[in-house]
């Protein structure tokens, strides 16, 4: 496989059979269309390339900029394609809730604009929502924006009608599957694939999956949001079901751990929704004599790596790590309560005579602004790391720990005492008490 350009590697993704031992369907073969193996990592590579290709060189001559309303994968693909043609991408969104994707886009050279949130005190006379204003900027006469308009652009659907759909038929030896299950985002892939499959066999049943209304699953719209998409036509789907974020993550874990498919939550939602839908059909097939064999295809949109923080927020249990030694979490309340402490006046006297090492546990910014003269700054997160390895200073050197109100420093004083330090004390009331007592703070 030798290519002249990375764009030639878009499409022709594998169709992989899911082991029946995993999904438990007896009469239906379930296949995953691995769109995560596209060069920029998602199903959106196809649409982005198909939409942008005719206009890229022209836009480059005009010195324009590619603009899209995208929260992730389309923006990622467009950012790469724009960069390859000497252009930049501006992604406008109010849905980008995945920090890793934001960072990746910035790294790829994209500009991200976030639309403002809803007004808290509604103004009933306000006429224009931010999106309307956005569209107005695009259509100004001297605008050089190349707006790919993925939610309304028929070339989005076309990419799947001429690419993804026919590939599925080819890989199933010239037959359309009995079932096609897809998540609804821009509706481009579900609509385009459905049309291609039905041209082959009008009996194909198409299931659309949307996100439950109270939930957020990246890349999937809720039913209300789907109505805002120009490419969305409810008649495309035989059924529209909703999937929750928990279910999407459950499906994702099954694909990741048991099938070796490193899908993200969107693919997980498609798998979960597919199996739920097909289980009923499978039972009906079992009741027939003789049982017919059917096939089903779902789309794996993108990869898991970008969604670690999304998963961590919802399933912290998946990231459990072994407990480490010398952690403040191991301390009992009694130990913290009885930790050696010293008030502001006594601390001032002690600093003058006993020369304790004063450790300020606040952040470097706060420390730089104002601190106790002669203190050193070891921010608490770093301090905790240090302690996992043992005492970070000699037992012969007395230590005074300071934090904002004396709460964190008490924990560390208790911990250091437990670790065998003979003379460590926490500044009671912290730097705030120090300030309130009129003791000097410096900025040096």
């Amino acid at each position, binding site marked *: 496989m030798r290519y002249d350009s990375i764009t030639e590697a878009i499409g022709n993704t594998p169709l992989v059979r899911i082991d029946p031992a995993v999904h438990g369907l007896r009469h239906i073969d379930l296949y995953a269309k691995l769109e995560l193996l596209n060069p920029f990592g998602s199903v959106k590579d196809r649409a982005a390339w198909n939409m942008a290709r005719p206009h890229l060189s022209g836009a480059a001559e005009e010195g324009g900029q590619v603009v899209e309303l995208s929260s992730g994968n389309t923006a990622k693909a467009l950012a790469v394609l724009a960069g390859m043609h000497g252009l930049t991408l501006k992604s406008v969104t109010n849905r980008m809730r995945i920090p890793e994707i934001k960072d990746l886009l910035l790294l790829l050279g994209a500009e991200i604009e976030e639309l*403002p949130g809803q007004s808290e005190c*509604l103004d009933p006379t*306000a006429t224009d929502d931010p999106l309307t204003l956005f569209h107005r900027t695009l259509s100004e006469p001297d605008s050089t924006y190349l707006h790919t308009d993925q939610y309304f652009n028929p070339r989005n659907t076309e990419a799947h009608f001429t690419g993804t759909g026919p590939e599925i038929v080819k890989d199933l030896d010239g037959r359309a599957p009995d079932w096609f299950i897809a998540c609804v985002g821009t509706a481009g892939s579900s609509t385009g694939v459905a049309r291609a499959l039905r041209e082959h066999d009008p009996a194909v049943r198409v299931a659309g999956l949307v996100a439950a209304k109270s939930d957020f699953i990246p890349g999937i719209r809720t039913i209300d949001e789907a109505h805002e998409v120009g490419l969305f036509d409810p008649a495309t789907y035989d059924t529209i079901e909703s999937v929750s974020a928990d279910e999407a993550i459950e499906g994702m874990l099954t694909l990741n751990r048991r099938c070796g498919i490193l899908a993200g939550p969107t693919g997980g939602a498609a798998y979960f929704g597919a199996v739920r839908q097909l289980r009923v059909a499978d039972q009906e097939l079992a009741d027939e004599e003789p049982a017919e064999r059917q096939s089903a295809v779902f789309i794996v949109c993108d990869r898991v790596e970008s969604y670690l923080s999304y998963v961590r927020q919802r399933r912290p249990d998946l990231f459990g790590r072994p407990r480490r030694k010398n952690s403040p979490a191991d301390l009992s309340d009694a130990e913290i309560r009885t930790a050696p402490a010293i008030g502001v006046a006594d601390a001032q006297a002690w600093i003058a005579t006993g020369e304790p090492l004063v450790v300020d546990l606040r952040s470097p910014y706060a420390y730089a602004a104002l601190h106790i003269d002669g203190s050193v700054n070891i921010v608490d997160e770093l301090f905790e790391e240090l302690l996992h390895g043992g005492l970070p200073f000699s037992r012969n050197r007395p230590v005074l720990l300071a934090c904002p109100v004396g709460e964190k420093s008490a924990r560390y004083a208790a911990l250091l005492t437990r670790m065998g330090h003979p003379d460590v004390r926490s500044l009671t009331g912290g730097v705030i008490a120090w300030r309130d007592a009129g003791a000097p703070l410096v900025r040096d």
Partner: protein
Amino acid sequence: MGGQPLYLEPRLESRLRSLLHSTQLLHTLTDALGSPLNVVVPDQLADNIRQFRSVYGTRHLSGQIYFAHKANRSSALLRRLAATDAGVDVASLEELQHALGAGLTPDRITATGPKNPEFLWLAARTSVAVSLDTRGELEQLATLVRKHALPRSRVLLRLSGFEASGVRVLSRRSRFGTPVSELEPLLEAVERHADVVDLVGVAYHLDTTSLTEKATALEGCLRVLEECRSRGLRPRAVDIGGGFGVNYLAHGGQWDRYTTELTEAVLGTRPPLTYGGHGYGLRNEAGTLRGTLGLYPAHRPVAGARYLDELLAHPAASLGGRPLAALLLEHLYDLHTEPGRALLDQCGLTLTKVLEVRETEAGGPLLVRLAAKADDVALEEHGVFMDPVVVPRDPAGAGAGTRAGVGAGADAGTEPVAVHLFGSLCLESDLITRRTVFLPRRPEPGDLLAFANTAGYCMDFHATRAQHQPSARKVAAWQEGDTWRWCLDDQYWPTTPVGGAL
């Protein structure tokens, strides 16, 4: 009626629920004082302050919670506030006078918003901290202090136009405050007037439900304070305003279902849900939904004190990723907040009497006329969707066989109904709601419809005396044991309840 009724039941905590169950009292009150009638529950305000305080407490933050006076002009609420440890932010001369008269001492008052010279003078005269909107206002204050030999004035600089690094957050434009890009001349002016003004901090006011935008502004304030310190100024407070929201509805599921059906009604795939097919900002363009739903997110799991807590937990990307609360604390800054609506959550309701229930020829929703104007119950003006609670005139006979000849006979009053609520003003536009409201049973003339939780915002903003119709009178109510007591709003002082608030 077709399909299931689309209820939007209000969230009622124990105090309001108990008050609404006091049917006889509510009817006695409206019989005596007329409809509409506003009832405020001052003790709830003290509870709400405690909830906000506990957020400060768990994060070890000090600083003041200022009740935003503009939310409600009730004297009872303000006097009850004076009996707590919280403060008030006032936005006019009259509000300042009211606050001083209710017993709030100047150290617990802050003056914000657009100001006229009298307001500025009284604030400076009484040593109330002033949140300055512009450099012009700073000059005006400095001149006043010098000319009238007033005490050195404590000021905060209200800022706007904060920029985030990395991702450009398109923030809602604010009319209020000086853009951060014009900070330099503003600080120079503060230094020039150091003999008459004392910079105690910075502030912002952002009208948005977005946590990210507020976090960006707070982070921006931390950077500005650092700039102040590097110039030798000694500010110690950030005032982050309010806008923490209220969760108005009891069930998220009802809200989700309602908004989906509303979308479908706009697209024409189900019968209309509004009077005259109004779309609340949504429109149908060739089968695709366009526009934005102009409604307050009435069901909000994260609102009020919880919203503040989430904002404080937000990491400050440009300052090492530590949570904003930790940065405030470590920098030894006080946090000031100005919640209005959120502090009045569950603090009151508006009672309206049903005057007429009319059936339409086409068999559509019933037309229910109330003894109130749309302006008296301005929920819709604020995009808040919430069903009124029916308080029957005759609780024992609520729909039970007394209404011969109505609909399907004896049971007609116990079936759910769809209604349109009209006001008493002789104007086509005087609709209490444009949407079809579903009630669990048919209301009858003489019943009350109670709009719960309107004390949050909607009680006083719009009330007028059009057509010589009175605007709502106001009473304060409180509990003594199992009994509800009341007095006119003006008569309430924290000493009024026997064995009560104090």
